[in-house]
């Protein structure tokens, strides 16, 4: 899941040109009402399966979905550089995937799009946000060939399913990266159905966890050569959060041992719902349930818990995770924290952390 869901709800708000709907969970992601249209929203449930390559494309009968890339890179000078690109889609009027959208000349508003881009380098965090209505043409996504775009920000496949190019440009920063996808998609939860509460809310969720990246990042006119690794998520749902869940803490970690770990906690009152996936360097991914995984917040930076302890006792994992110095809040319409992290403890490594729904955002 992720904050990605966030924005989509906001898009609805803006696009609807009406009074903002009453907030349901963080960014309205616990919203469960049906659309006034005759076509209902589809809600993922246990037993649903992933289909490739179709699931790289949009899901017009689901309320929310996102394409999400985070990357831990290094400049030619050896400095760490974090990077995020996300595109959100919010369905306003669901339609079956087999049905074509209205023609662009009618300025349809069955969906709204939002894109987030960020670069984190030398303690500075640059962020930009873009909005668009769906089905007009300047924002969209296709599974084959794989392409996701909003204005001139785009993630496109180049000459094959494992070679992608990502281009993003904001006022004072930009990046142009080549991505080489390695390994198969990792299905989270139960064959792709990722539960978000004990009562059944959830999403379809898979990741590409091993992406080799190289290219250039330009900040304030200074162009840097970068290379490193990335993590790509695809997720969609119609009701992601349960009513009462305030936000989440999410981690995607690359460990130096070659293992990977995805873990999240949905906060509810004093407790919450914990889940994750252990992806060993060799072998099949293992879904982690509430009894398998512990996420413990450490010291706060302002209102943000920027130090964490992650434990997966069955695999001898006891990690200390911390964000580098700086303020990594994405100050868009729904602010949230998105920062690179370093990992020490039983394993060393790096990764990304997302914190949403905190008061100080």
């Amino acid at each position: 899941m992720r904050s990605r869901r966030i924005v989509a709800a906001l898009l609805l708000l803006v696009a609807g040109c009406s009074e903002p709907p009453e907030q349901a969970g963080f960014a309205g992601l616990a919203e469960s009402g049906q659309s006034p249209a005759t076509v209902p929203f589809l809600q993922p449930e246990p037993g649903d399966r992933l289909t490739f390559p179709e699931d790289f494309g949009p899901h017009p009968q689901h309320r929310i979905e996102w394409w999400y890339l985070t990357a831990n890179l290094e400049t030619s000078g050896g400095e760490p550089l974090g990077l995020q690109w996300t595109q959100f889609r919010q369905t306003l009027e669901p339609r079956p995937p087999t049905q074509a959208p209205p023609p662009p000349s009618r300025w349809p508003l069955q969906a709204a799009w939002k894109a987030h881009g960020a670069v984190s380098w030398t303690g500075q965090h640059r962020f930009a946000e873009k909005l668009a209505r769906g089905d007009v043409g300047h924002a969209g996504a296709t599974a084959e060939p794989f392409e996701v775009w909003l204005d001139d920000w785009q993630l496109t496949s180049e000459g094959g399913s494992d070679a992608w190019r990502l281009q993003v440009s904001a006022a004072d920063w930009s990046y142009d990266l080549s991505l080489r996808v390695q390994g198969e998609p990792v299905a989270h939860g139960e064959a792709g159905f990722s539960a978000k509460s004990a009562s059944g809310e959830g999403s379809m969720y898979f990741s590409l966890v091993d992406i080799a990246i190289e290219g250039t990042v330009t900040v304030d006119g200074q162009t840097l050569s970068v290379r490193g690794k990335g993590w790509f998520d695809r997720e969609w749902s119609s009701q992601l959060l349960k009513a009462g869940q305030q936000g989440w803490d999410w981690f995607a970690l690359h460990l130096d041992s070659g293992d990977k770990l995805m873990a999240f906690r949905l906060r509810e009152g004093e407790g919450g719902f914990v889940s994750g996936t252990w992806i060993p360097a060799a072998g099949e991914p293992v879904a982690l349930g509430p009894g398998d995984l512990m996420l413990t917040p450490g010291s706060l930076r302002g209102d943000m818990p920027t130090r964490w302890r992650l434990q997966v006792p069955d695999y001898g994992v006891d990690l200390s995770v911390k964000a580098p110095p700086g303020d990594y809040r994405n100050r868009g319409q729904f602010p949230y924290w998105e920062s690179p992290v370093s990992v020490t403890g039983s394993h060393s490594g790096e990764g990304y952390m997302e914190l949403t729904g905190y008061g100080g955002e």
Partner: protein
Amino acid sequence: MKLFAALLSHYRRHPLQLLALAAMMVVASALWTGVSHLTSQARASLGQSERAVAERAQVERVDGMPVTVADFVALRRAGHCVMPWLEVERPASTGRVVGIDPLAAACFGQPAESYRGWDQPLNGESFLDIREAKNLAAAGDGARATLSLLLSGPPGQPALPEAYRRAPFSLGPDTGELGESFLLNLDALGVLVLLITALLLRSVHQLGLAQRRDSFALLHRFGVPEPAVRRALVIEIVLLAAVCVVPGVALGRLLAGGLGSGFGQALESLFDVPLFAGQGSSWLTPVLTMMAVVLAVCLADQLHFSGRQVIRRLAGQGYRVTLLTLVAGLALAFVSSSLALTFVAIALVFAGAGVLAPGLISELARRCGRASAAPLTRWQCAEIGVLARRLALPLVALQFALAMVLAVQALVTVFEATFDDWLSQRLAADYFIEVPAGADSLAAADWLETQSPLAGSGRWHRVVRGRAILPAVDGWPGQTVDLFALGPVSNMLGTWRLQAAIDAPWEAFSRGQGIMVNEQLARRRQLSVGDSLTLALAGERWTAPVLAVYPDYGRPAGEVLIHAAQLPAGFRPDGESFAISPDTADLDAVTSGLKRVWQTETLSLRDNGRIRALADSVFEQTFLLTRSMTVLTLILAAMALLIMGWVFFTTRVWYYRLLAVWGMGPREVAGQLVRLSVTLTMSIAVLALPLGIWLTWALVHRVNPQAFGWSLPMAVYPEFWFELAGLSLIIGLSIAALMRRQLRQPAAMPVSASGLSGGER
């Protein structure tokens, strides 16, 4: 502390005085804060909008075809910040709507700011999401939709793809500097309100002090030194100001908030400026200003500032100095060539008139008393004289307020009438059709000339706009002016109101026997009808007589009007259009024909009726608000006079009781009170009349031309004078009614023997 308690005990005995002073501080602070808050908000909004408008542009296709959704997508994907703007013209009963895409608008400026900016029109009636607007257009019913692509950012950044070009985008009639003019008037109103409130505050405070003189004298006899009393009075007024000014400012902001929606609507419609709440809304400035005003007017007597002696000395010189001030102000207003000097002149005239008015009433009363042998008449005249002297400050405040209301009313009415005329002449045609870039306007003119029923009907003319050079001649430096060319001379031009003209100017114009100039150029070059003006057009010099001077409001630029047939072949216009009133002709047939002539798929057609209706409603709102604010000021002045009159008359109850001793019945005494108070208020209304008319003249003929280069016609509205006279009558009658109640209560002795407290005989 005991001294302080002794001083404050006065207010315990006379709570009404404390209440009057506090109420005056609160209301004065509220009124001035309201006006200044609205003005500062408007100025901030105007500034912000000007920055935005400076960059407002649209994208056009180089091939002349209309822009489409595909163009929007191509430009967005190329990284350009464009947003769609779909205007849907519907039959008159349903009106026009504009469809926009708020998501696409997010790239215009900072996201939060732009969202707030676009959020406002979305809640209005005429703005819709672009999908809804498109659905309306698709529903038929004679609706016509035109898509524009608005472009953000300064020219050339980044360069547009080759297939597109940047073009200006206008949302309505160009109001030029009208916005600044509007704000200048509001500023002037704010200054006058401040002056009036200062006078009212001082008058109420002075009255209170006068009534406490006996207490001060008593304290002095008990050994309290005068400086100690003065210090205590300073602390008292500082505390009172601190307690009253802040709620007053808060009340003023509430007042501004109440007026804000209508004001904002007017501002937005008229100048395309949304009024952003919270801008220019510092608390500190109004609080400090009002504190300073309160302290200055109330403590002027406590502080030994040198100006006070000067004023006393001047006052000692009597009416000679006052008259001199007045005459100097009047003369300066005539000869001044700068805005600052004109404002000084206005200040001098107001100062002179303010000092003269009560003195004049008093003097006239004295002479009237001398001329009469009847004791009662002599008493009445003497009493009027006393009242005029003792109520001088509130009377002057009422005079200023009446004069201001009179001037603002005349100004607003003149504005309305003038702009109505001007809009009529500029929008005389039903439609403007723009000539597309590169299209041949002469071919279109030839085609129109052959079309029945337009041929020879005088219901259309060609409009060419460009630039001309006035070469340096006869000591005048060379300058570039706007060029406005028309032809053929249509019947629609007959409605133009000209400021000065030869006989049958349009006939001479159509024969190419001369040119016309706008008022701005005529003023700048001191041109009169019959003078010659040399122009350089496309490198050719041409001298022609001035046939007429026409008004041209809302912008400072000089302009020359020539017949289109006289444009040299090499002249490159900035823009061309046709003004057409099709009457019985079919507009669709005309536009289709022009499309064929110009071989284009799209025409830019402007419906002047809609613009006219918009402008009319907007002017109405704007002027209504200006009037409301002036009327509020008048009400404040009237209330102050009422309070003052009541309090002051109360101190003279003992004398009025003597009327009964002289043998008058209660009704006769009441009649005397009515005569006294009404004579007083009506006298001040009469004295306010010339001041108001003069102020109107100064604003119309001096301030506006000096500030903006164009003037308004001068007009007076006697029926409004009678309305103000009626108001003055009501104030007088109200004072008398209050006094009548007062006389019913016993008052055995005069409340004070002090001359300042009403004991003068």
